[in-house]
Structures are given as C-alpha cells and as structure tokens.
C-alpha cells in the first residue's frame, strides 16, 4: 500500500491520480444530484440558500480542479510513455511530488466542509470582490483558495514531467511527427498547463493575500483585473479538459474502424492552432463587463471554428471506408463527437457578444459547458476507459454492461442538459437556489432532474462493470483490439519498465498497423505467386 503511494513508476502514479479523480467524479456527481433535487420544484426547500451556494460551488470546483483536469493528466502520465516507447518518465519524483500536492490541495479544499461558515461558496471562479474577506469571511473559503492553489501547483509539476518525457525519452525512430494522436493531444495539454496554470497560482495567492488585508482586487479595475487574470488561466484549462479526451475518442475510433486516424498533419496543425488561439480568447467570458474589447475576443473565439472543423473532417475521413466494429469504446467515442457538436455550436453562439449579452450568466451557458464537459469530455473519458482498461488491468470490461451504461448516459445527458438551453434562453439565471413560478420552467427543470437521475444510474452501472470485470476476469491478452500504437506491443498490464521485448520499427504514428499492413501485403504476394505455378 505505502509502496504503491510512493512508487515512482509513472503507471502507478497515474493510476492513483486517476482513481482519486474518479472518486471526486462520484463526489461531484452527488453534489449535482443535490442541485437537481433542489431545482425540481420552484421555490425548492431541500437546501437552504447558503447550502445551495456551497453545493454548486463545490460541484463545479470538484469537477474542474479535482476530476476532469487531473484525469486528463492521469491519462497522459499513464499512456504517453507507453505510446512513445519510453521505459519510464523523465523526472518521476517531480510527478510524484505533484501528485501529492494535488492530493493535499483536494483534501484542503474539501476540508472547508468542516467549518461553520461553510466551504467555498462563490462559484468555481470566485470573482472578487465577492470572494474577498469582506464579503466571504471564514476559513472554509480560505481553504478553497489554498486548495485550488496547491492543486494547481501539483498539476503543473505532473505536466512538466510529461512534457520532459516527450522531449527526452522518445524511442529511436519516434520523431515528433510519428507521435500517436493521443500523445499529441496530451502534449498540447501539458504545454497549456505549463503556460496557463502559473496564472491560476498567482491569482489564488493574490486572492489569499487580499482576503487577509491587502485589498488588491478592489473597485472596478480590481474586479476586472481579477477576471482578466483568472480567465487567462480559465480558458486554456477548458482545452486541457478537452484535448486528451479528444485523443481518447480519436484512438478508439481509429482502432474500431481498423484504419489509422485520417488527416494526421492537419490534426497536428489544428491542435497547435487551437492552443495558440486558446490563450487569446479569455475575454469572451467578460463581454458583459464593459471592461474588454469585445470585437477582438469575438474574432479570436469565432476562429475556433477552423480547428474544430478539422477534427470533424478527420473523424469522417476515418469512418469512410473503415471496417467498423461497434464496441462500447466506439459508442462512447461517437457520442463524444456528436454531442460535442452541440457544445461547440452553443460556444460559437456565445462567442458573439450580442447573443452573449442574453446568454451570459444564464442556464444557456450551463447547458453549453456541460455539453462540452459532460457530453464531450466525460464521454471521451469513458471511450478511453473501455479502450485501455484491458491494457491497464489485463482484463476486459463487460461489453453488455458497457452498452447499458452508454445508453443510460446518452439519454440522461441529453435529458439533463438540453432543457437547460431553452431555460437559459427563456431567462433563467444560473446559480440560483430558487426559481419563481414561470410558465414552462418547472416542466423543463423536472426533465433535467429526471435526466440527472438516469445519469446516476448509468454511472452506477459503470462502477458495477468495473467490479464485475475485476472480480471475474475475462483475460484480455496483450492486444485485444488490433491496436495501432506501441502500448499494444507490450504485455497487459505493462511491466515496471514498460517493454520487455525490443520495439518494432517505428515508421509512422501507427507502427503496429504498419506491421500488419506489410504482413498482409507479403501474404498477398505469396498467394499470387503460388496458384499460378499449380495451374501449369
């Protein structure tokens, strides 16, 4: 046990990080169910206003700082070294330290529940001056600030380790333009963590000082400054919460279509333009402040259509002409791409200031980011789980339970979040503990609450699937899906130093597919040569 917690094996650290993140997913999900219970009726009394504010804040904060973002890094830390043929990560102790800082960050943030004033209660971005000592006194909120700070620092360290690994430990032949699709998505993510998270560390540290008498974020300029600084981190992080899951979905699609991912070069370029644009769009969160140049941020944000569009071109190119098998991983991957269309379209919508003047701060936005984070990233995450679970554990997940899980999640997600698009358009603000009786609102909220229940059942089926598949193991073998990348070359689970036999020649971003294709060609040629001779 202790050995596992202090191991410098990247797989061990990543697994611990992933399991802890998964725990926070369930915890954040419980908070979500409490939100939806409260909002099932107008003027709900299930939670007091104070408790509601704590719950929605901790729901968002837990999901972002303690689940989706660290889970991205866990996937990267586990898979990247395997995909690039490395024996270990660079600077494993840095990654381990990062893991522990993140662990303490999370515990510190949640420890606010023990304070009488309650934990963080100002939303996941805790705008100043509301989050200052004047308006939100109490050590619970202090713990939120410190927790976020520490978690962010920890995640920077993990990202550094992954980035160094890619820089220094690629196997011979693994040029940057032969790195697998997932590795590329992980690389841009960790680079964005390194570029943007220090800003979060700075903001949270300043906020902490502000809360204890320094009064930094005061007046108009102070509150605009806070928002500028925060969103300079806050937008890039949404891509950290997106890219690796896109990578998961892309790898699952490629394997299940038995083709390599289409348009690799364009994909790599789109990743790069995504990350460049992503540090220039933060002001789209501030259209209604009157404190930023709206036209500029509308320009950069709308341009995101281009790299996003490329992803879909490549997806369709991969599907066309494929030999498609509909395994659970494939279902989740396709769910990711299709539902993300709604998240993306509503994102371009809010990138238009005039439309955002209405949408900002409403349930429209809540629907938008759940279509990206839940219907998108979480579906991509499950695609990744079903795809790589056999590699990590040596056992397969049950396909039957997996399909039940998928169908429940698909129905639940759309039932929960689609009505919120309409509610927001109809004028329902977000972050309200109660809504007035208003024609149509109760019905839409009820559909949303029932949907949340269906999601909960779906997640329970998934957890059951994990337990069943680990208890009564169906051995997976080393390469159950005709994998294309190096992690399928080694044993399941991989040994301490990842590869025991020599690596195959690395000729492209799908080296194992290259091997199979060449073997097929040779066999064909041999067949052509033989029967002719027999005829004569």
């Amino acid at each position, binding site marked *: 046990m202790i050995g596992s917690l202090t191991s410098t094996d990247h797989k061990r650290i990543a697994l611990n990080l992933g399991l802890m993140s998964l725990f926070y997913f369930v915890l954040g999900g419980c908070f979500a169910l409490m939100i939806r219970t409260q909002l099932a009726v107008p003027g709900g009394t299930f939670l007091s*206003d104070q408790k509601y*504010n704590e719950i929605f804040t901790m729901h968002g904060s837990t999901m972002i700082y303690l689940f989706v973002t660290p889970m991205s890094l866990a996937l990267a830390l586990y898979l990247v070294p395997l995909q690039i043929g490395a024996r270990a990560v660079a600077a494993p102790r840095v990654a381990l330290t990062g893991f522990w800082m993140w662990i303490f960050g999370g515990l510190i943030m949640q420890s606010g529940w023990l304070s009488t004033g309650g934990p963080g209660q*100002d939303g996941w971005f805790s705008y100043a*001056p*509301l989050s200052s000592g004047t*308006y939100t006194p109490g050590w619970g909120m202090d713990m939120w600030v410190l927790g976020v700070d520490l978690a962010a620092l920890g995640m920077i360290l993990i990202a550094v380790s992954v980035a160094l690994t890619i820089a220094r430990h690629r196997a011979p032949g693994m040029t940057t333009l032969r790195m697998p699709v997932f590795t590329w998505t992980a690389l841009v993510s960790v680079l964005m963590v390194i570029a943007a998270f220090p800003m979060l560390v700075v903001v949270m540290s300043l906020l902490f000082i502000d809360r204890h008498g320094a009064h930094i974020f005061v*007046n*108009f300029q102070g*509150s605009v400054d806070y928002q500028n600084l925060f969103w300079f981190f806050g937008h890039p992080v949404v891509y950290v919460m997106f890219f690796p899951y896109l990578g998961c979905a892309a790898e699952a699609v490629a394997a299940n*279509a038995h*083709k*390599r991912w*289409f348009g*690799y*070069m*364009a994909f790599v370029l789109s990743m790069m333009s995504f990350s460049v644009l992503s540090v220039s769009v933060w002001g789209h969160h501030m259209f*209604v402040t*009157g404190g930023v140049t*709206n*036209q500029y941020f*509308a*320009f950069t944000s*709308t341009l995101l*259509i*281009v790299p996003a*569009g*490329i992803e879909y*071109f490549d*997806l*369709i*190119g991969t*599907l*066309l*002409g*494929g*030999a*498609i098998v509909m395994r659970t991983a494939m279902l989740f991957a*396709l769910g990711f791409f*299709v539902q993300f*269309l709604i998240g993306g*379209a*509503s994102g*371009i919508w809010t990138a*238009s*200031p*005039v*439309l955002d*003047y*209405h949408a*900002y*701060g*409403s349930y429209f936005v809540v629907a938008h980011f759940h279509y990206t984070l839940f219907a998108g990233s979480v579906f991509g995450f499950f695609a990744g789980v079903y795809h790589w679970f056999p590699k990590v554990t040596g056992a397969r997940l049950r396909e039957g339970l997996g399909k039940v899980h998928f169908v429940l999640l698909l129905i639940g997600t759309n039932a929960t979040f689609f009505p919120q698009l309409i509610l927001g358009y*109809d*004028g329902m*603000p*977000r*972050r*309200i*503990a*109660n809504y007035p009786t208003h024609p149509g609102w109760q019905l839409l909220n009820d559909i949303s609450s029932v949907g949340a229940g269906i999601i909960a059942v779906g997640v329970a089926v998934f957890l059951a699937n994990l337990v069943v598949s680990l208890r009564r193991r169906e051995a997976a073998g080393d390469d159950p899906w005709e994998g294309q990348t190096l992690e399928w070359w080694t044993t399941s689970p991989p040994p301490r130093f990842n590869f025991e036999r020599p690596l195959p020649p690395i000729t492209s971003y799908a080296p194992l597919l290259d091997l199979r294709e060449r073997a097929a060609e040779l066999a064909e040629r041999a067949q052509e040569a033989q029967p002719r001779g027999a005829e004569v």
Partner: protein
Amino acid sequence: MPRAPPREKRLSPFALVNNRGIYSWLFSFYAPIGIGVVVLYTLIIVVAVLVYRRRKVPNRVHEAHRLELSYVVVLICMATGLLYLTYTAEHKVDDAQAYERPALSIDVTGARWEWLFHYPRYRITNESGAVGRQPLVVPVNEPIAFHISSDDVIHSFWIPEIRFKRDAMPHHTETVDLTFSRRGTFSGSCAEFCGLLHADMVFTVHVLSDSAFRTWAASGGKAAPWRTAS
C-alpha cells in the same frame, strides 16, 4: 447579402436601436446555421457508421490534402460571415450612445440583494427588494440611458425581454442606451452571482405607453397605470 437589422417603425425620432429586434435579426442567422451544422454532421457520422459497419477490409486512404485545404477555406469563410453579422449587430447595440440623445435617464444600482431604480428627473427611487417589490417603470419606444453601478460586489442587470444585460460593477458607472419595443410586464434578474440571496434579486419591468408613463412619473411613482390599462 443579409438585410440590415429592422427598425421599429413607431420609434421616436431619437431611438435608433431596438435591442430585441437586433438580437432577433442576428438570431435568425445563427440559429439555423448552428442547428444545420449539428444536424448535418450528425447525419454524416451516423450514415458513415451504418454503411461501413459490416465491411471486412478497410481502405487505406488517410490523407486528402487538397480537399482538406479547400474545407479549411470554407471554414474560414464561415467564420468571416458570422463575424460580419456579429459586428454589424454589435456596432448598433454598443454605439447607440453615439447617435441617440435620450431624454430619460435612470440610475440602476445593485446592492446585496436588491436593485435601486432612481429617476433623477422625477426624484423617484424604486427598490426591488423584499419590502416593497417596486418595479422598474419605463416608456415604450424611447431610448433610455441606464447608468448601472453597484454598491458592493458585482451584479448583472438582466432584462431578458430586451435580450440584454450589463454588469453592475462596484465604484464604477456603465452607461448603456436601451429601448423597449413592446408594452407589457416583464421580469428581470441578477445574472452575476453575488452571494447568499442572489436568487432574490429579481424585479418587475413595466413598459408603458408614453402617456401612461408620464402619469406615473407625475404622480411621483405612486400611480400604478399598469393595473388599469393593459
């Protein structure tokens, strides 16, 4: 070419910007395009999956540089088109002050957890808070200068009827010109989380005819013309 945003016919000579109208104009482009894109791609993906589901041998095509490049050009054109529409609309909304000279101005102040509507010209102050639940009263089709500010934290002054909100920031006054184009009773709320009773920062908006508004103003805010006339 897209038509210019419609102008409300009955607007007074000074009112040039109909907020709701401009939003609807932009909506009429963005909504069909957005829905169209979602439906189109979904269909392509579903059909591709159904068609290639039972294939035994995959093809090996994995690049189409020319096609992809032309597609990128199409995407850029699409972004350009959307931006053109957005800028056209935003120019109207944001620069209203440049060509309007509102006769009426209202100071709106957010304070935890109510709104104050102060009419300097008529010496009327209405409070939306739990005690009086007093409304915001405005004349129809007339540009109004709103001076929006906050006494404490950030609030956001949102009136869904005119599809507009603007943050109320501490120690700062934002001025926006807004025009209500329909008579009636609407609701407004706070759209920036401001602490404990954020949900209670709702208010009523009465949009009255010019004469009804004058009656209300002349009475020092005592009359309630919305009760009788409708």
